[in-house]
């Protein structure tokens, strides 16, 4: 066995001869191609008789050199000839990467695409909402078509299985509000107002809002991924051909589950947060639980509870709708499922927070302060 690909230059009467030797294979090339570029003169003859193995890469390099310089090939083995014919046949310009437009045009193009996409999404969401309304109406007229089993199954996934994580999150948030509130209120000697802070912010805002964010992350994403996968495996097309409406079978049960369970989960979250805050008040501010509960009754108006509970089903509907909508938009490949799931969660949280701002203004205007 001889060594790496190599060559010697040999200038004779007929001009320069390049004598190749060694193994002209990918593994043994080393800096051979680069040295070959730096030949002292254009060769008249390339001698391959010293080559003991050659692969397509070696054949390509030799072939290219011969073509560039117009040199004659001599001493090529049958193998080498065959390979060189093969690569010569495959010699056409092939681009490796697609053309990239200039950065300025690309930025403008991306802005345009994003704008179009957001309009399309908005229109799509509204027409999806219309489809849901139509399906709901036909279900109201024909209530027996409602798939109770599916609804109850969704109740479990959206609600019961979320109790642990939502409870833990709310408990910690209650403690954080109490602790941060106490530090600030202490400066005015008004630590006792911590109770107001905890009671009102959790029932009115945070209980439902944090629950909505958690449900969007847990269930909104799951809806998008499940329906998206069903779209990919053509399950949804199969449903349509059998005559089952995917909106009735898949979307309505999920919407119902989210609408019914969001208020329950939101209320539960507010309770646990108050419990966490109360625990902190007791341990750290030495407000005994009895006093804490009494103060709560005095400072939280009933309307605060209604504010929270009225928002919750709307948030639930938004989360379920964006999740199902994005799932239905999946087409093409599995990568799309991931992208759509991400946008389902992002859009759901965004819409929830925008709506929450509207609700805040609305409830203040009607005097529920």
């Amino acid at each position, binding site marked *: 066995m001889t060594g790496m690909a190599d060559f010697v230059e040999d200038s004779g009467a007929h001009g320069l001869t390049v004598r190749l030797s060694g193994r002209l294979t*990918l*593994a043994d090339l080393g800096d051979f191609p680069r040295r070959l570029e730096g030949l002292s003169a254009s060769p008249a003859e390339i001698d391959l008789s010293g080559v003991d193995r050659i692969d*397509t890469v070696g054949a390509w390099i030799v072939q290219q050199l011969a073509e560039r310089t117009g040199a004659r090939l001599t001493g090529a083995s049958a193998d080498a000839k065959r390979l060189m014919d*093969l*690569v010569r*046949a*495959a010699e056409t310009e*092939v681009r*490796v*990467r697609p053309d990239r437009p200039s950065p300025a045009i690309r930025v403008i193009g991306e802005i345009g695409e994003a704008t179009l996409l957001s309009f399309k999404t908005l229109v799509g969401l509204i027409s999806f909402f219309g489809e849901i309304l139509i399906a709901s109406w036909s279900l109201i007229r024909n209530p027996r078509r409602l798939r109770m089993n599916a609804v109850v199954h969704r109740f479990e996934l959206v609600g019961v299985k979320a109790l642990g994580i939502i409870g833990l999150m709310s408990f910690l948030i209650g403690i954080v509000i109490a602790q941060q509130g106490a530090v600030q209120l202490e400066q005015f000697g008004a630590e006792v107002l911590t109770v107001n802070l905890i009671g009102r912010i959790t029932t009115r805002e945070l209980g439902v809002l944090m629950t909505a964010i958690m449900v969007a992350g847990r269930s909104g994403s799951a809806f998008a991924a499940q329906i998206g996968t069903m779209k990919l495996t053509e399950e949804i097309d199969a449903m349509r051909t059998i005559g089952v409406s995917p909106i009735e079978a898949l979307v309505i049960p999920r919407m119902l589950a989210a609408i019914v369970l969001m208020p329950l989960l939101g209320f539960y979250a507010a309770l646990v947060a108050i419990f966490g805050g109360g625990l902190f008040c007791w341990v750290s501010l030495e407000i005994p639980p009895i006093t804490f509960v009494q103060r709560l009754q005095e400072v939280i108006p009933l309307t605060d509870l209604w504010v929270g509970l009225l928002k919750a089903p709307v948030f639930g509907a938004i989360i379920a709708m964006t999740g199902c909508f994005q799932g239905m938009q999946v087409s093409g490949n599995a990568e799309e499922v991931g992208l759509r799931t991400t946008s389902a969660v992002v859009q759901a949280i965004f819409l929830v927070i925008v709506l929450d701002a509207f609700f805040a203004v609305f409830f203040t205007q009607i005097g529920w302060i």
Partner: protein
Amino acid sequence: MDLENPNAIRVRGITNSFGDQLVHDNLDLDVHNGEILGVVGGSGTGKSVLMRTIIGLQQPQAGSIEIFGELMTGADPETELDLRRRWGVMFQGGALFSTLTVAENVQVPLREFYPDLGPKLMDEIAAYKVLMAGLPANAGPKYPAELSGGMKKRAGLARALALDPQLLFLDEPTAGLDPISAAAFDSLVRSLSRTLGLTVFLITHDLDTLYATCDRVAVLADHKVIAIGTLPELLVSDHPWIQQYFNGPRGRAAMAAVDRHPAKEA
């Protein structure tokens, strides 16, 4: 090539099981240098598992695998890496990297093993490999999502050929292709293997592929290779599965097709 070692792959006593389910039981298999070996078997007989075991994606419970005379099972990482650059694998769906273009996909193994090739040569190699695998020139800058199933398979083949391997593993190369593309793929594999001196390990369900490309065929059943040999040798076997497979309506149709076009064999 290696006179002292006529077998590219030597599998001895492989046992594989998933939980209670036994897939391979003491399986032996030899693949000769330079041949195209077709591997057939019913669904679930472990054809793909056998390939995954040979290329080291799956650790067998027992047995040994030698590739080019080097022990693959329990080899140190360097030997394994050295062997890996001597084979190419084409997975069923092409298994292309979705964020890279076809040509960039072909360059991945080159960049990994020979990073100092220089960008120009690298692009040239990718270009002729893409064409060699039977793709049109405008497929180079396309992303896998823009390709049809058949083109994905060809791109997978181009990537498998990137390192000029001596050994090629093909997992169901013609599954899901229309008959015209499948026939074109068969002749492509055959001509590449002849020109490049490749040894090919080919898993297939396609009887036409067996007749058109394979030198020998191994039949997997009952957790073992129950028969291996040329097609005429297998046809006279009296194993019921082999009889059903080759002498069933589809088997006879494929055989008749070869008889009608005997030129293919030449």
